[in-house]
């Protein structure tokens, strides 16, 4: 296949995504619904931009909550975009009506994750695979039957006669997935979106389906968007990879670069965490703590900062990080000690509201007590990135005032062959962090 120049000519580009956002509003509790208020907004896709070039395989890799599935569906028009643009072969999709989209569907198809649920249990394989031809009135009768048989053989369901009259329940997982692929390619689409096409299949079958998809790419000149959480199959299958975290692309670039020299700490963590059937390896220990946060209220600044081992001053520190720190500390303590420390702070729940400053009330009426607790926590683990985010702390009567540095939104920057969204590679952010570090050190010395 052709090599990827990093600067693409416009003709080259099949799908062009700019500033795409897909937000869901979530239903709140019963009380909130009664009053007509919505609980919040989930930014499933939050300002995503990239190009998909003709003939390439682009991987969208991410864990749950990353928005990869929603992104795939938004690009296909199955989900309405909230903002931004998706151009398919020059045409803007986000503003199309359902009817206009339907004609476009001939050119872009999708293969879903669950082979057992993607086929209508009430239709035979012949009906299911031939249905697209009927919907779009491409061919009918004898010609339709011929096309169906031909496509079945192309995906490896040969001899076709054996499969035509069968129902999905008669087929194995791998065979079902082949039928789903057949249905997706029968209209000769240009773009194929594959959403976790092999993750529900056994190991020994995955290779067969992936091999099939690679063959089809060559034979039918397909462009793939490969959505997965599995970096191992993505490495094998994709030319370029985009790593997604909470609705944003944190790193995107050629496959080789991503795997050999991952830049974003999240990418690095993902690669370390993949289990390898190599007994010389043992379970990785230096993993980011915690899990993907709730997409309805993401962390301030960079979404990854609470888990990032290399976070620093500008990454967006806030109240909830302090809560995580305290809870983590208390998990390791004896019950009595925990009880004693917990009792020190009256309004712990104020740490649940995301802010860059907070006033903690001391039960003992002495704000300094809370600060002492923080000092003890700091002494226990002074290298914890959290402390770099603290701007100032002071006791005011019965309260302890803590404030953090203002969050700086990460920018997408080109670093060599990849584009990364991380302060570690942002000269301006690094300079700003240095300035803040000096400021905090200075005020500490002055005893403020």
């Amino acid at each position: 296949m052709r090599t990827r120049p990093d600067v693409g000519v416009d003709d080259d580009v099949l799908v062009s995504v700019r500033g795409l956002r897909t937000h869901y509003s979530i239903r709140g509790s019963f009380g909130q619904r009664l009053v007509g208020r919505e609980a919040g907004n989930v930014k499933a896709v939050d300002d995503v931009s990239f190009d998909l070039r003709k003939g390439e395989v682009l991987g969208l890799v991410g864990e749950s909550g990353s928005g990869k599935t929603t992104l795939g569906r938004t690009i296909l028009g199955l989900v309405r975009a909230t903002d931004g643009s998706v151009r398919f072969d020059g045409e803007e999709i986000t503003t199309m009506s359902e009817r206009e989209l339907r004609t476009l569907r001939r050119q872009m198809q999708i293969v879903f994750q669950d082979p057992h649920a993607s086929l209508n249990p009430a239709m035979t394989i012949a009906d299911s695979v031939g249905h697209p031809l009927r919907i779009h009135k491409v061919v009918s009768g004898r010609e339709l039957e011929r096309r169906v048989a031909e496509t079945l053989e192309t995906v490896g369901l040969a001899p076709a006669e054996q499969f035509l009259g069968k129902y999905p329940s008669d087929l194995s997982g791998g065979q079902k997935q082949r039928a789903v692929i057949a249905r997706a390619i029968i209209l000769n689409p240009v773009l194929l979106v594959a959403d976790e096409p092999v993750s529900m299949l056994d190991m020994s079958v995955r290779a067969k389906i992936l091999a099939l998809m690679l063959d089809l790419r060559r034979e039918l000149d397909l462009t793939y968007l490969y959505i997965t959480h599995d970096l191992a199959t993505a490495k094998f299958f994709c030319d370029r990879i985009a790593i997604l975290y909470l609705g944003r692309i944190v790193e995107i670039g050629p496959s080789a670069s991503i795997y050999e020299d991952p830049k974003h700490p999240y990418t690095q963590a993902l690669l370390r965490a993949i289990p390898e059937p190599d007994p010389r390896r043992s379970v990785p220990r230096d993993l980011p703590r915690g899990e993907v946060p709730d997409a309805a209220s993401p962390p301030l600044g960079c979404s990854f900062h609470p888990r990032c081992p290399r976070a620093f001053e500008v990454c967006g520190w806030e109240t909830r990080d302090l809560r995580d720190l305290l809870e983590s500390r208390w998990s390791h303590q004896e019950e009595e000690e925990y009880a004693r420390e917990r009792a020190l702070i009256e309004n712990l729940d104020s740490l649940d509201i995301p802010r860059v400053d907070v006033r903690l009330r001391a039960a003992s009426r002495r704000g300094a007590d809370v600060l002492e607790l923080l000092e003890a926590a700091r002494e226990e683990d002074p290298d914890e990135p959290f402390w770099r985010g603290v701007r100032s702390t002071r006791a005011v009567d019965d309260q302890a005032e803590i404030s953090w540095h203002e969050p700086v939104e990460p920018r997408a920057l080109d670093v060599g062959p990849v584009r990364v969204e991380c302060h570690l590679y942002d000269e301006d952010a690094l300079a700003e962090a240095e300035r803040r570090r000096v400021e905090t050190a200075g005020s500490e010395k002055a005893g403020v």
Partner: protein
Amino acid sequence: MTRTMLWLGVGITLAFVFIAIFAPWLAPYDFDAFQANGERFRQLEAPSRDHLFGTNVQSTDVLSRIIWGTRTELKVVLVSLFFSITVGVPLGLLSGYFGGKLDRVLVLLMDVLLVIPFLMLAIVIAFLLADKVGQGIFTAAIAITVVYIPLYFRVVRNHTISIKEEPFVEAARALGAKPFTIIRKYVFFNVVQNVPPLATLNAADAILTLAALGFLGYGIQPTDGAEWGYDVNRAVSDAASGIWWTGLFPGLAIVLLVLGLTLFGESVNETMNPVLRKRPKVDVDFGAQPDAERR
């Protein structure tokens, strides 16, 4: 539910169907015949050779009325079932698939219908229609239809809503299928399996409703045909005089048919609902070893 009860249900139901079809040949007399061979029947005559179940206050043969009544019952119930299904199911499909305002309005309407005590609803409708269309089989059927539409609507709507989320329906959308095609090919067949069990149990219930209507005098006209509920009503005053046959037999007929339909309905439900189906306990024999030599 044991097998015997199931087969009993099927048997009873089929028996009644048989009686309804072959009524003209089975019934000794017409449903409103009060004489034969020039001889008037005696009024309120106890069961005898000529009149196996006796005669009622209008000198008509009880047995004949039971047999002809079977026709009436099944006719009304089938008509009402047909209308309930053809109105309730499509509305449920549309409401479930499209949602939105249509759905909200329909659900509200159906909920209101469900809240009104069914008998009262049937009576009101029968009453209203009686003025326009006159009392008859059709009226009774419509009254019963309206009562049961919400049932089909609800069941089909709920199932449609859950099927709508299935990957294969999303796949159909991705293929570019129009909504009606999707409903027709992808949703309908998966949802319609709920209908048969509901229909048979519905039929049992409808018999009772019809009988109740008849009992209250809102059922069919006595001149149109025999109806068990009407007969039971007529028999109420007989009971005080010790005349048992005019009430017992129609009453038994009602109970038997409803029982048969209910048992039949339960068996259909079990067959179609895999969760209820009990796995047959097959004994495992560890001794049998068809393998070639084992260690």
